[in-house]
């Protein structure tokens, strides 16, 4: 079996963006998802600092320090895009106008609880940013993360052990091993990578998995990892 690398996970998420969706992409891995929107689909990327219709990263000679996304990356504005102020941007988020937010996570619980902002590093300052607003109010919260910690401990759990970002909000999880929907009954596996058995996936998961009747193979094209 070959787990997906992070670009491949981003690719897999990107395949599920529908035409016309308003999508917010979290810092880190999720921002890469906009590179993998399917041909012919127009997706509006919202960055919580107020860029509505964020385009690709700016080329070196077009980079403008006044045009950044929520990750401080110098970006461009896509056709039809604009910039609003932060109060309005979060009114948009809080008001439920975001179709999908894709966030990284430390842990996700079977009831949809999300923990992605505080991993309890002693004495370091907090870093919540817009995560709580996004998690609480987006129509769908998709999580993108490695299936387990570097030490192999599960991140999909019965109950989160780290401080919550929002209760009962996650609707999908895209990992290096599987695509999992989260519903009222818990985790439902929709895709699993070739060469990994259902039992092996369950062994790497801290809560019971159900498998969809049409559970398929999670496959992505070859894409080199960045950085």
């Amino acid at each position, binding site marked *: 079996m070959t787990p997906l690398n992070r670009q491949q996970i981003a690719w897999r998420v990107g395949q599920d963006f529908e035409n016309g969706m308003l999508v917010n992409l979290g810092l880190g891995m999720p921002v890469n998802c906009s590179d993998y929107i399917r041909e012919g689909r127009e997706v509006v990327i919202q960055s919580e600092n107020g860029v509505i219709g964020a385009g690709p990263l700016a080329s070196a000679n077009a980079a403008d320090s006044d045009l950044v996304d929520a990750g401080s990356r110098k970006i461009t504005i896509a056709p039809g895009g604009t910039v609003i102020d932060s109060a309005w941007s979060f*009114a948009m988020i809080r008001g439920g106008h975001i179709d999908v937010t894709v966030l990284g996570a430390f842990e996700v619980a079977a009831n949809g609880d999300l923990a992605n902002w505080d991993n309890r590093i002693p004495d370091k300052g907090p870093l919540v940013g817009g995560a709580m*607003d996004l998690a609480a109010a987006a129509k769908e919260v998709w999580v993108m993360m490695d299936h387990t910690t570097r030490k192999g401990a599960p991140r999909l759990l019965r109950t989160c052990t780290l401080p919550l970002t929002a209760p009962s909000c996650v609707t999908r999880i895209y990992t290096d091993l599987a695509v999992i929907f989260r519903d009222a009954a818990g985790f439902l596996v929709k895709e699993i990578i070739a060469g990994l058995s259902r039992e092996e996936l369950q062994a790497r998961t801290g809560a019971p998995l159900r498998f969809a009747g049409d559970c398929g193979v999670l496959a992505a094209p070859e894409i080199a990892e960045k950085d």
Partner: protein
Amino acid sequence: MAIDKRVGSAAEAVADIGEGAVVMISGFGGAGFANSLVLALRDRKVGGLTLVVNSATHPLSQTHTLIEAGLVRKVICSAARGRGTALSAFEQLHKDGKIELVCLPQGTFAESIRAGGAGIPAYYTPAGYGTDLGAGKEVRQFNGRGYVLEEAITADVAFVRGDVADRFGNLTFRHAQKNFGPAMATAAKLTIAEVRVAQSEPITPDRIELPGVFVNRVVTA
């Protein structure tokens, strides 16, 4: 005696900010940091400040210089994490109990400032409900969902970065420079804008992004 809010320098613009002032500082991700005003305030060496700033530690913001100079007693923000594993000045002071911290979800941070300028003393939001940041706050159900009550934030002074200003204090912003500027300008008793260009001629009505009635002083920086 026409209205003219332009002043000569950042130092002059901040000259009457006193000990213990509550200061809002705009800026996000490198865009719209009012760094000239922050540095001018640092040079005044008035202490006991409360900062209302989205990030207390962003490397492109000069906010950290106020903290490092020991002038800050409290920070209200949505982020205060220094880069890397070493503790930043903020983190060390906070660890030592020398600086107070209020951490808010960024949308709550923005909305509470907007509320402060809009005469709304308190409002309900879903952000933070059921989390450590909502703990201890008043909660209430609406339509079967949980919300926390958040109070308005106001300030003595707001530092805002714009692009063009006119003598009335009207402002335009370049792209993502806007961020917290408009809301902060409405929520402070005294709003000071630093801009690229401060002109006498009025900005065209439909290009103005922040009406000058919210801006008290303008300085080119």
